């Protein structure tokens, strides 16, 4: 809690707002004490004087100093605004919590009434109440307080509903705890924070509403005075002495701003992660990007049927303490029709690699490579229409979550057709026809009707197939699929994978399949790249996963997958420890801490990725060495 609030103050906006609020509150407390008598001094010989050295903002109808009066008026103004907002919050709380306590029928009635009241603009309600209560401070406070209540009632309702849906509330209710107790014990403490924040913003609005009412003559009446009253007097004389209105006006604005900004900073501060703020601003500028790490790679002669050629790929992102290399020195190639799988735990950099090779990394990330070619075209060259067309038609991307990957407000057919209209120069009708054709090609039944539907009307598997269909609008030479089946059921998974296989076969399309699921990759792909901590640690044929894996990590991954023969009496195999974060990459092999074969050299020197036989490459100082029997692995785990 402390940390979160201090984070608020650290943003420049939050700091200013807090300072302003403190200043305003101090003024409210001390103003009358310090300047009360001065503000009250009547001098009928100096009526309505213009600003001078003696009276910085001039004088009013009784010769009193306007600036001093503005300073002293802080207390009643703030008090009135606070009282008004307290009224709003209390009534809002009562109305908003009522549905929870009263039960469904009455609750619905109350919330319907609140919804109607919320629809009315505040000032109309305030005028309504001002007419009823009459002009004056009491009337105005009640008017503004009551007119602000519906908004708080609505807010409370939403918050309470949110908390009430939580499991622990349901548990309490089932346990027989009364509604009121649940309300006070569980619900209210949890909504206190957002309520207070909104109340702070509301206090600012209340202050400003008061000036509106006073401007019309319905606010505080003489001889009492607040900022609104001073404004009322000042605006009447604005063309004669503008300072008479400026002084209270500026005061109101500052106070209103202070409350609003403070509330907003708090809201923001309690919500966002600690990447944004003074510290982040300071560090990102200064850091220089380090040299790309050089790894001894063996040069491959690019052959004609190489679709994707990647050499020394690096992806760097700015971090809290400096730039971080999330993908380091990744090199591989994909041939026509080949299926390459990329496997690794979360944080291994596999998804980023996919994004990097398809040039979809976010703008604040940096992609560097010695070579990054698609069908011979350099993808690191600046973006041109030609390149966009190339990527749009020859490269297909399939993302993990098909629901969020489609635009929910546009029909599927239109989203497919876009590719054709933009990159293939087709007319809308031609493009739509092609889209329907592609939907049919990915085995979506009733493609014509489906094309006119929205994403949310498709099932998960169908959406993924539609996504694939979208990639097939052109003639892709390469499909990059990032966890395409993770969000789907197992049976549907199979359908999608079968589809991918069919496409590959039909058109000789290459595939890069990223997954954390070793089995899937093993089934679908020809080759597998194993990534750990942003590096490729092994590059081997899929067929050899179970038998010919040489890197201890690969072996551990394979072993961790249970199959029908696994002994169920023992604990399931896991890889002890946790993957290392990219910011904490050690000088040596990143896997050393978890590797049973690690020695001093491993910890000191990072092994390069070298070929051991044919196209099989490993980055390890002890490739292929037998690991201690799995029994010991279990004991190690148990002893931890």
């Amino acid at each position, binding site marked *: 809690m402390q940390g979160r609030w201090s984070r608020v103050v650290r943003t420049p906006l939050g700091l200013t707002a807090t300072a302003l609020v403190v200043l305003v509150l101090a003024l409210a407390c001390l103003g009358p004490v310090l300047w009360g008598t001065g503000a009250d001094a*009547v001098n*009928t010989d100096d*009526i*309505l004087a213009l600003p001078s050295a003696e009276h910085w903002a001039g004088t*009013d*109808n*009784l010769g009193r100093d306007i600036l001093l009066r503005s300073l002293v008026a802080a207390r009643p103004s703030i008090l009135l605004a606070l009282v008004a907002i307290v009224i709003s919050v209390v009534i809002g709380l009562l109305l908003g919590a009522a549905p929870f306590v009263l039960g469904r029928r009455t609750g619905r009635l109350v919330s319907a009434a609140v919804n109607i009241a919320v629809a009315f603009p505040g000032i109309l309600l305030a005028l309504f109440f001002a007419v009823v209560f009459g002009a004056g401070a009491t009337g105005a406070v009640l008017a503004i307080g009551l007119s602000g209540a519906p908004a708080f009632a609505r807010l409370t309702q939403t918050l309470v509903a949110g908390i009430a849906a939580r499991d622990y509330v349901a548990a309490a209710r089932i346990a027989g705890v009364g509604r009121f107790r649940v309300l006070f014990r569980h619900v209210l403490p949890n909504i206190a924070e957002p309520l207070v924040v909104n109340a702070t913003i509301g206090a600012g609005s209340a202050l400003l509403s008061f000036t509106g009412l006073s*401007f*019309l*003559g319905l606010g505080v*009446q*003489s*001889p009492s005075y607040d900022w609104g009253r001073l404004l*009322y*007097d000042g*605006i*009447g*004389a*604005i*063309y*004669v002495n503008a300072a008479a209105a400026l002084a209270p006006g500026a005061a109101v604005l500052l106070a209103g701003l202070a409350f609003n900004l403070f509330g907003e900073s708090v809201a923001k501060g309690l919500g966002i992660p600690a990447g944004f703020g003074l510290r982040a601003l300071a560090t990102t500028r200064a850091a220089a990007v380090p040299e790309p790490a050089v790894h001894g790679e063996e040069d491959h002669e690019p052959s004609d049927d190489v679709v994707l050629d990647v050499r020394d790929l690096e992806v760097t992102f700015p971090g809290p303490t400096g730039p971080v290399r999330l993908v380091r020195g990744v090199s591989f190639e994909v041939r026509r029709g080949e299926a390459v799988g990329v496997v690794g735990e979360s944080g291994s950099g596999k998804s980023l690699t996919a994004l990097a090779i398809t040039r979809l990394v976010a703008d604040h990330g940096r992609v560097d490579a010695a070579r990054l070619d698609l069908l011979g075209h350099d993808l690191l060259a600046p973006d041109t229409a030609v390149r966009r067309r190339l990527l749009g038609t020859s490269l297909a991307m399939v993302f993990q979550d098909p629901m969020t990957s489609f635009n929910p407000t546009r029909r599927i057919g239109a989203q497919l057709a876009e590719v054709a209209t933009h990159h293939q120069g087709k007319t809308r009708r031609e493009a739509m026809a092609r889209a329907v054709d592609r939907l049919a090609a990915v085995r979506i039944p009733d493609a014509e009707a489906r094309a006119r539907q929205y994403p949310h009307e498709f099932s998960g598997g169908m959406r993924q197939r539609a996504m694939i269909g979208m990639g097939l609008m052109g003639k892709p030479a390469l499909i990059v699929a990032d966890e395409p089946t993770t969000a789907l059921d197992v049976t549907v998974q199979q359908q999608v994978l079968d589809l991918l296989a069919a496409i590959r076969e039909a058109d000789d399309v290459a595939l890069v399949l990223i997954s954390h699921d070793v089995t899937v990759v093993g089934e679908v792909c020809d080759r597998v790249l194993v990534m750990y901590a942003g590096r490729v640690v092994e590059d081997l044929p899929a067929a050899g996963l179970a038998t010919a894996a040489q890197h201890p990590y690969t072996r551990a991954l394979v072993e961790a997958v249970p199959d029908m023969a696994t002994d169920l009496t023992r604990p399931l195999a896991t890889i002890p420890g946790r993957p290392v974060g990219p910011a904490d990459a050690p000088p040596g092999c990143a896997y050393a801490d978890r590797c049973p074969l690690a020695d001093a050299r491993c910890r000191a020197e990072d092994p390069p990725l070298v070929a051991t036989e044919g196209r099989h490459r490993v980055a390890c100082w002890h490739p292929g060495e037998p690991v201690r029997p799995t029994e010991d692995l279990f004991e190690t785990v148990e002893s931890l």
Partner: protein
Amino acid sequence: MKRITTAGYGLSLCLAAAALAGCGGASTGGGGTAPVVDGGTFTLGVSSDPGSLDPQMGAGSTLFAVTQFAYDPLVSVDGGTGEIRSGLAKKWEVKDSTISLTLAEGITCADGAKLTPTVVAANLDFVSDPNNKSPFLGTFFPAGAKTVADDAAGTVTITLAQPAPFVLNGLSSLPMVCPKGMADRTALKTATAGTGPYQLTEAAPGDHYTYTVREGYTWGPDGATTATKGLPKTVVIKVVANETTAANLLLSGGLNAAQVAGPDAERLEKAGLYAAKTPALAGEQWYNHAAGRVTADPAVRMALTRALDLAELRKVLTSGQGTQPTALAANEPVACPGDSVAKSQPTSDPKAAAALLDQAGWKAGSDGKRAKDGKPLALTFLYQNNNGSAGDAAAELAVRQWQAIGVEATARSQDETTLTSTIFGAGDWDVSWVSLNVGSPDQLVPFLSGPAAPAGTNFAAIADPDYDKAVAAAMAIPGTTGCDAWLAAEAGLIAKADIVPFAVKVLRTFGKKAEFKTPGQLIPLSIRVLAK
């Protein structure tokens, strides 16, 4: 924004007599040498909508201003000298309770009908009939009058129930309605049927009213006609509620004339705009004489009066622009010029005031506040909100000055309707600031004597036999010869601190690209539209 209305410094019962002569009323600014524009448009700004346009059924000052254009009264009053001049009547004679008027020839209405003595008599009968509830009855036209018309001779003879010294002044404020209007009274709410120099051609209630000049109008006061050079062909009366906006419009040329009283008036002065001036009572303090109120005791009233520094109050109320009043009937054209205040008004002396209160049994307690038999000396002080911040400031000052002698007063600013409903409804008040603006002293009689509110309009419940006697004697003297008696009667009330007039302000009607006269009211035939 604040409403400093054109109703200015008085109740909507602004009983100003209109003068249709070219003279009277001071004016400043502008030059008599600017070239006039013939047949131009003159836009007059008023602060509120006149409402129903029936000239005999409303007493609001805006209605008054608007009525001047389309209707004529029987006689007119010279703004400067107070002499009676011709109106629809070219000759008149007053003998005791009988008034005979001879109408001018060839008077036509806007629709061409002739205005005959029969029509005039019908008008006067209409106002006289209490069932019609015209606010002119009893104020501009005495009750119980009988009218006889002689079409052949062209005369109208009015017989009053009792002598009324300023009856002709009253008649000069009573507009005559034409036969079409007399026949269909409801039509008069939104249209005009009169003999005046202009006629209403377009009405957008709440926004503006357009009047067009009538050619061939020759029966203005002293023979004034609409053939005069510089008279506008079209007059647009625009409702501009906000005074600052009116001032802005004057400066930018959106209005040719508007009455501006608040701080914006200084702005317009500085800009060198033409200003026609007329005085109005701005500060008049009344006490509630009704039994049971603390102010029923004359000693208390005197003490409260002497505790105040009236000169200072005046300075604050009028922002230094005002003067001491000379009589209770301050509006132009003044029927009785003279001074009833200077010698009679009690001087400011807080110590004497405190002594008076001590004598009356109001002793100061340890906290300085006075009480008698356990009842604290606390006043309910109401004042009208038509003076803006200056009024609030003056009220605050008065409260302080009373506090200095141990009297607690609660000041409340009220709009006209609330204030009048309180005081005329015998409500809860002890002291109030209400400016009763009238032109002749007899119009004040029902307010200063007679049945108390709510039965009558004597809202302060003043019951002063000396005043009643003095008034009865003055009533018997016709016209301005009785003025000295009237002023003496007033002075008596003021000397006893029964009523405290303390400020007169000059109401300025500013003009841009136009000049005019405003002795109490804007005189239509005095308007001259200028080229620049």
